[in-house]
């Protein structure tokens, strides 16, 4: 066993020297995740502002005008005009100049004063589903709040309370900031790509240069090569994780509410899995060009589309849900959200750690067995 680790150490030390001599690897591992995090974090925002809304005021009262003014006073909505009939407002939706139309019925002010339930109709352009959802949610919340304050300005405020009213309270991200939602996903995505790329090139480079043939003429074993390649990049990957989390915390005010050791464990397992995937690509491809392409595609697409980062897993068709079960980013994102936002520890996240450990073990095993020691 001593000789085993001795050889792993020699391989790792050689790999570290390679990295020190090659600034591109350091850039890929340390600078690229930060650059991508900043680009995505600032560039991609799911928060919608200044949504164009048109109105049909059938009441023509002080209260209806005030509702309209106060709705559009903030950053959320822009008033793009008022019409006397719903069909005119609907024409705005068709033309695309408004995303929603709010219809304020006759007797709005009277019913408000008397404390009667009022039904406002909201027409929403549903052609862009995610915007439509946000408009509905924001309009709902704003009208409810404004209705209360308008009514309380009136005489019969005390009679307003409806018998049953659901009050939702969004925890962990009450402001609904998309940075908070995006940073864990981006962290996983970026680290997945970088980790797979790091190892995908190391083995194929040795194949191309013929040094692999030289290695095979020595007593070094396949597992030793795999571990010797894995360990130095695991160290580099850990540095990248720390950097990304630090930037997430400073620049995007990401909270850190849960257990740091649990996150460290999950991150190490995730890195091992992705580095192992890169090794597998490298072992099979034997050629740097092919390895780069396979590595990028096999890490980026699943981590982006099937991890629950952009599309919730519960909404996916069954076959895709099954596939997503073997995407490591899925578990890492879940664990990141858990530790950073929900304040989770090992008790809640052990299944993520277990899934990632299984994936890592599988990758190391497969890269070792697919590693052909003989050369033609």
């Amino acid at each position, binding site marked *: 066993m001593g000789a085993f680790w001795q050889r792993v150490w020699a391989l790792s*030390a050689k790999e570290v020297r390679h990295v020190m001599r090659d600034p591109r690897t350091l850039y890929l591992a340390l600078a690229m995740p930060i650059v991508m995090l900043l680009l995505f974090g600032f560039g991609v925002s799911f928060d919608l502002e200044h949504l164009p809304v048109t109105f049909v005021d059938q009441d023509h009262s002080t209260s209806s005008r005030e509702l309209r003014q106060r709705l559009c006073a903030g950053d959320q909505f822009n008033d793009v005009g008022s019409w006397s009939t719903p069909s005119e407002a609907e024409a705005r939706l068709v033309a695309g100049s408004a995303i929603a139309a709010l219809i304020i019925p006759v007797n709005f002010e009277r019913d408000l004063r008397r404390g009667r339930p009022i039904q406002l109709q909201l027409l929403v352009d549903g052609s862009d589903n995610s915007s439509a959802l946000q408009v509905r949610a924001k309009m709902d919340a704003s009208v409810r709040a404004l209705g209360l304050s308008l009514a309380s300005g009136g005489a019969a405020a005390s009679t307003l309370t409806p018998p049953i009213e659901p009050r939702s309270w969004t925890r962990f991200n009450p402001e609904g900031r998309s940075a908070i939602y995006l940073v864990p996903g981006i962290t996983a995505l970026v680290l997945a790509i970088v980790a797979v790329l790091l190892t995908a090139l190391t083995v194929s480079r040795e194949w191309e240069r013929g040094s692999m043939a030289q290695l095979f003429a020595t*007593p070094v074993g396949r597992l030793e090569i795999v571990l010797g390649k894995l360990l130095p990049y695991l160290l580099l990957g850990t540095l990248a994780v720390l950097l990304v989390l630090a930037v997430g915390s400073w620049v995007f005010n990401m909270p850190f509410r849960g257990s740091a050791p649990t996150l460290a464990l999950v991150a190490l397992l995730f890195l091992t899995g992705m580095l192992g995937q890169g090794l597998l690509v490298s072992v099979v491809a034997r050629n740097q060009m092919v390895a780069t392409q396979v590595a990028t595609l096999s890490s980026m697409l699943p981590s982006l589309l099937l991890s629950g980062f952009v599309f919730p897993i519960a909404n996916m068709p069954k076959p895709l849900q099954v596939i997503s079960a073997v995407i490591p980013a899925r578990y890492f994102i879940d664990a990141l959200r858990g530790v950073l936002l929900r304040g989770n520890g090992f008790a809640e996240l052990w299944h993520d750690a277990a899934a990632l450990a299984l994936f890592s073990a599988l990758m190391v095993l497969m890269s070792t067995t697919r590693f052909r020691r*003989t050369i033609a």
Partner: protein
Amino acid sequence: MTEHAIQVDKLSKHFGDFIAVRDVSFHVERGEIFGYLGANGAGKSTTIRMLCGLLTPSGGHATVAGHDVASSALSVKSSIGYMSQKFSLYLELEAEHNLEFFAGIYGLYGKRLRHAIDEVVERTGLTEHKHAITSALPGGIRQRLALACSLIHKPAIVFLDEPTAGVDPASRRDFWRLIRELAGQGTTVFVTTHYMDEAEYCARIGLMVDGVLVALDTPEALKRTWVPGEALSIEGRDLHKATSAARALQGVRAAELFGARLHVRYADGVPIDRRVLTAALCSAGAQVEGMEPTEASLEDVFLAVARTSVQNQESA
């Protein structure tokens, strides 16, 4: 087990229908420089790779340093040094870091590692290049570094697969001086080359043609067996016109052009008559300016062996 450093018995390697090496048998003594010659694709590298445990033989047996290459490849690898045809060190690293890497791979560490590096660096004359980046070293020094890496663990046997390919003549001479010193200290050297002048340095030579070991002996014995008789090297003009005239002479075994010269070889025991030869050459349109006896070279041997095996194949 065996007293020989390398013992090969009916070793074969097939790649599908293609037979790269067919029933090859030989042995190499301890401390011997054994040359393995042949054209490209004759099966030299395939043989070396089987002996180093890089390829599994399709048939036959081979033991290297007492270990079976098929069943104990790992023990074989620990006791040999291998220098591959393609330069395969890490170009971005310092020369010394390459040495450290291979020392570590062969299980050296600490003081023993430093000592081994110092020794091999001195032996191969690399002291002043220790801290140079490998890619900045000239070809001849790189070859010496590659040799040093394969010697770092003091193997009993080194396999050198065309170690001097693409290296300038002066560096090749230096390299062979090293190899002879190595063998003098008891290391067995198994070397492939296609430089015939280098093959003269070998104690014994095996000649491969199309996967078959067709000749095996000392350079002198090979020359006696394959290129018997005396030969003249002729200087002159338009000698190419007279090649067939020379061949037609009685007692002449072969006439070949070597550069601007014509080599005429007589059958064993036939006395040379220079006047008859000169007359024949002149009447064929050549001008003779001088002639002198010449020794057979390994190139002659190689050509003779290759010609014979082509004839054998045609008659078979």
